[in-house]
């Protein structure tokens, strides 16, 4: 009974055990930085704050977890920005051609071509960057930091025509 009660107490108070709650990632430092107009310089701000607020955040494991948290956050933002652009592109492609002008290229196809090219570029760049550190404990984190940075920059590029 005593063991069961202890287990129940632990289950009800997960915040009392920081090591089990994962990195303390918060997107606030990124969004605040973006609101101040610092653009791509804001990529990495969330991971940076995370390493300082997460117990053990300064270790390779802690740093890697914080980087991965921000990378995943940017990935969601990228998908949202891409979907927004795709919806706009579909709308643009439905517009009637302007008489006298050459037919406009498909915005949907142009957007898809860019995103495919970006994925190839990201994979080549980050594989190379990871390899610069190969053999060291930070190699994986270097590759993931590259993916975080590039995903953030591409998100901001996609947002840029909206002024975000």
């Amino acid at each position, binding site marked *: 009974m005593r063991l069961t009660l202890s287990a129940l107490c632990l289950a009800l108070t997960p915040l009392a055990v920081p090591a089990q709650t994962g990195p303390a990632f918060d997107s606030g430092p990124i969004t605040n930085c973006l609101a101040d107009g610092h653009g791509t310089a804001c990529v990495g701000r969330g991971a940076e704050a995370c390493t300082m607020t997460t117990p053990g955040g300064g270790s390779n494991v802690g740093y890697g977890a914080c980087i991965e948290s921000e990378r995943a956050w940017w990935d969601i933002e990228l998908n949202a920005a891409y979907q927004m652009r795709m919806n706009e592109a579909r709308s643009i492609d439905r517009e009637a051609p302007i008489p006298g002008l050459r037919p406009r290229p498909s915005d949907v196809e142009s957007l898809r071509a860019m995103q495919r090219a970006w994925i190839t570029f990201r994979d080549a760049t980050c594989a190379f960057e990871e390899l*610069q550190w190969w053999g060291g404990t930070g190699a994986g984190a270097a590759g993931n930091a590259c993916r975080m940075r590039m995903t953030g920059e591409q998100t901001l*590029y996609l947002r840029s025509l909206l002024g975000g």
Partner: protein
Amino acid sequence: MRAFAALILLSAPVGAQGDWLLDPMVIEQCLATGLVEGCIGMVAQRCEQAEGAMARGLCLGAETAFWQGRADAALARLALREGDVQALSSRRGVDPVPALATIEASFTAYRDAACAWREGQWDGIHHGWEWADCRLRLTARHAWMLHETVEALP
């Protein structure tokens, strides 16, 4: 306008553009402040203010040439290590082996596609200016990424 801007850009050699349209030290001093994003496009803007709006394409091209020069310098330093990196990746069985030439080709393909997409959002005179501005910004960011990679090398 796009054809006009392209004609101007093609008519002047890259080095000559940088010589008389912009002072590289202005960008270098800006970069020293650490606010890299704010430095991109700054000199092209000053150039346009001095030379007039019709020189916008030329000014954007001049600053793009500056950043391309920085990218080339960083690539030259990375190339010195490439043999070691290739040998290491072969030993570790990394497949495909990432190569500098592959990265640069993929960057060029991405930049062309990204700028074609952005260019397509505009009509009229803005068409060519957006294309030139896009090339400047993506080239500058890529150059800075290469620079930071070099600076952080183990």
